């Protein structure tokens, strides 16, 4: 009764709609101005000849898109973006599932193990990446030293991990995986802990082995949370430019350039705002698709 009285009071005075608008308006306005506005500006630039240091702007139609689509480095960038995003996510899903199973049961020292496992995700990525740059150094790489010591390579003949296109692509892909595995692991771990213990136990009593329990019962039950982990993983990798910028700066010979890093190279370093904006707009279609799936996951969880 008291509850109803209060509702009537707050609604009856007409205070609530006004108050709620006043409370969320600043945040919404800020986002409209500094996310919505720049987004529109990016589209506008993509159809113009905007350059840093050039005050005049002309509408050039699809000219930027035409010249981008013709450029070989753009094709490499779009291919790399997809290879890094999808390839690293495959590594991540497999590793994170294994790790989450291993971490599920409590043991002494789990807190410390969790802390160590999380480091790649929580440390600033530019710093983690520079750590890898040192590990993959062309001369003093510890990996090369170890491989030479194990006689896989003769001294001074170990490969240059970041200096040869294929190895550089593999290195960037694995550093991306390294960064996202901890994130996916903790999300999947939360999903596992939320499954009532008696369900996998009942399956075991009924004679289901480890793999069958995992693949036919636990993982299907975790589908929503697995989707969350994968969708965020895809977005974080697809939109990142830090790993590539630090490790290879897009090289050797633009072979590791991605959409964001190419947009930066042309748009900021090369002063060609229009080209940079046009390239970064190619991020949008995949982001829209991922956001759509994200909403579906959220909605389904809401209904159930």
């Amino acid at each position, binding site marked *: 009764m008291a509850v109803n009285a209060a509702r009537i009071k707050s609604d009856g005075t007409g205070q609530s709609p006004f108050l709620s608008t006043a*409370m969320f308006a600043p*945040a919404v306005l*800020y986002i409209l101005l500094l996310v919505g506005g720049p987004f529109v500006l990016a589209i506008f630039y993509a159809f113009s000849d905007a350059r840093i240091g050039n005050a005049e702007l002309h509408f050039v139609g699809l000219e930027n898109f035409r010249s981008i689509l013709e450029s070989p480095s753009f094709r490499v960038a779009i291919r790399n973006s997809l290879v890094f995003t999808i390839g690293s996510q495959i590594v991540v899903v497999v*590793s994170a599932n294994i790790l989450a199973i*291993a971490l599920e049961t409590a043991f002494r020292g789990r807190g410390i193990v969790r802390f160590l496992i999380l480091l790649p995700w929580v*440390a600033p990525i*530019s710093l983690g990446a520079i750590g890898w740059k040192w590990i993959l150094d062309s001369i003093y790489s510890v990996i090369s030293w170890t491989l030479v010591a194990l006689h896989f390579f003769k001294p001074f003949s170990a490969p240059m991990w970041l200096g040869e296109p294929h190895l550089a692509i593999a290195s960037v892909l694995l550093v991306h995986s390294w960064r996202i595995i901890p994130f996916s692991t903790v999300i999947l771990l939360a999903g596992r802990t*939320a499954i009532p213990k008696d369900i996998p136990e009942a399956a075991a009593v009924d004679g289901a082995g480890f793999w069958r329990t995992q693949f036919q019962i636990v993982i299907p039950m975790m589908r929503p949370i697995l989707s969350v982990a994968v969708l965020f993983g895809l977005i974080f990798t697809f939109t*990142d430019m830090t790993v590539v910028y630090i490790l290879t700066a897009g090289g050797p010979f633009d072979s590791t350039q991605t959409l964001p890093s190419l947009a930066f190279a042309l748009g900021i370093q090369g002063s060609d705002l229009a080209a940079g904006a046009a390239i970064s707009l190619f991020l949008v279609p995949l*982001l829209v698709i991922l956001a759509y799936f994200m909403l579906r996951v959220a909605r389904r969880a809401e209904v159930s």
Partner: protein
Amino acid sequence: MALKFSSLLLDRVIRATVLAVFTVLLAFPFYWMIITSFKQNVDLYTMENNPFLFNAKPTLDHLKFLFTETRFVRWLGNTAFVGVVVVAITLFLAVPAAYALARLAGRWGERLGIAIFLTYLVPPTLLFIPLSRVVAFLGLQDSLWALILVYPTFTVPFSVWLLMGFFKSIPRELEDAAMVDGLTRFGAFLKLMIPISTSGILTVVIFTFTLVTQEFVYALTFISSESDQMIGTGIPIFLVRGDVYYWGALMAACLIASLPVAFLYNLFLDRFIAGFTVGAVK
């Protein structure tokens, strides 16, 4: 019985092996940062040396260099300053917005909440080019204020989302009772909800701060002078002079800048997970 025991043992051995392998792979770069930070240059740059061992006496030279001959301390200060101001702005914008969307605006509020969350998915790499012009237009180039202006674009959406979930978990009856006792809706928000939500708000403080320390693209685009760098850009870009990498100092800097963030993050990990999995875990 014996069979059961041995399969349990096998189970534990497999788990331990998996964990050991992954922990080594994931934590290795940080272990390598520690080793590198304390090695003398002769040791670091002699190819015959076993890099896993200290072949010469450990040294504090790299740390001394880092703290006395570089702007490292200044960058730590810049990062702390931007972090604190962005936290304040984020709280000011996100706490009332999350409350309003969780409580007052009904079904419509939920949709708006999801829309705000979706803006979290709009990446800096899509906005940095137009924002660089906005920053130039406002005369904020090469100023930490450019970052303070722009960072809430990703801290506010995430915080609103996190706090919405938090406010929804508090029973409405509490405020209703307070309002029957004579508080206004806004009074109930200020005097009742904010005090009970301290842990939710603290979570937002921590994550806003860590997001600020982790940011790279905007700091790289807007700031070019050495003294105005954040740790995320200053360390990888300005500790390299020309083509010379000061690996010892570089690794020490990475380690010092990473560890506090990692500790804070771990303390609040469960809430962070809750923010990402709202709705997907029941």
